């Protein structure tokens, strides 16, 4: 089972354990990978391209990643707090909490998805 995402360009190769990815955010034509521990890596790929890489390279782990709107991909294993009214999403690793913002509609869908996935309701 492939557990690492490999992002390769003509000059560089980045190999990241999927479980260590907290979220990926769109940054114009580039994207930022935030990994557990707080390290941020900018890569020269758009978010849609990274989504495609995850889809193809991580067939057994891709379902842990959720695309939220046009600007975010998050790892659901790091979800800590969803506040729909405040449009706030907190992700957490061992040491840090990361604050993100998304539309109410997307956060409501995310909340419902988590509840359904873990059979909370």
């Amino acid at each position, binding site marked *: 089972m492939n557990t690492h995402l490999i992002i390769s360009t003509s000059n560089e190769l980045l190999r990241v354990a999927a479980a260590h990815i907290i979220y990926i*955010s*769109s*940054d*114009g*034509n*580039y994207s*930022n990978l*935030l990994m557990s521990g707080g390290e*941020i890596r*900018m890569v020269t790929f758009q978010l*849609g391209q990274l*989504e*495609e890489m*995850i*889809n193809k390279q991580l*067939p057994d782990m*891709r*379902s842990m*990643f*959720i*695309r*939220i*709107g*046009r*600007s*975010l*991909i998050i790892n659901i294993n790091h979800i800590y707090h969803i506040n729909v009214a405040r*449009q706030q999403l907190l992700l957490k690793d061992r040491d840090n909490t*990361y*604050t*993100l*913002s*998304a*539309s*109410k*509609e*997307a956060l409501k*869908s*995310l909340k*419902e*998805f988590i509840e359904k996935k873990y059979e909370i309701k």
Partner: protein
Amino acid sequence: MKSNKYDIQDTEIRVIGESSSSSKRKWGWMILAAVLVIGVIAGIIAFSCAISQEEEGIFERSVRQAIPHPLRGWIHSLDSITDIYVVTKDTTVNDIPMRLYVPLNMTPRLEVGYKCIDDTTHNMLLFQAADVRADNKKIVGAFVLRGKPLSWGLSKKGYCGIIGDQVTIGVADNSPLFEQATEVGGYFFRQYPLVSNGVLVENELKSQSTRRGLCELEGKVVVVETFTPESLHDFSQALVDIGTTNAIYLVGSSAIGWHRTLDGVGVASGQWEPRVFKNVSFIVWSR
């Protein structure tokens, strides 16, 4: 450009590897149908009223990120430049492709009429400034040209005042810059406000078209132009995300624009002919 299988709206989520978003598709289609019906009705009403070139529609909320956009701080790299030229920067913000024009070390002014746009010797950068009313073809909102008031009114709360070489952009019902411009031979015009003190200003215009904005970005005046049709909300949000403090709209869609490249080549945008509005106005930076 946006029509591939990875397209997604800011109101949606999608588990990677699954073809559809987790939102309820049935409700999604019903809402989409309802929105289409409402959109068509709103379009007919807006067209028949012929009050504005813009029509009602829907807009979406943008995802805002906790991390700063990489353009933040970029503009300070231009601080050491002493030459006269227009720096352009192509970028993408929230999937909106756009170009930033930064006029450096040149003199700003307003002009009325088309004559000024043919002066390609001295002009470095120009864009249409104030709107022209559809009914009487007069300038919309207060306008001062070289100290002479040409138009009065407060239909739009965004303003730009030019006193000497200083361009001030803001949002207010009343601005002392109007009076000041009349006293010192300055310039003043009004437009839709987009960003005020770093906060997005909502506008009623909901249709999509090429957008242009006059922005105060980390102490510098910057013109931002989108390459794709965008809603005013999404455009304003993108300006906020790159760190704009204050911004007002410039005439969008097919309005005239022009800049001189570093190589001395003039690059025009918009529809230059026919030249039918004698009260068309421009903000011009020249050497």
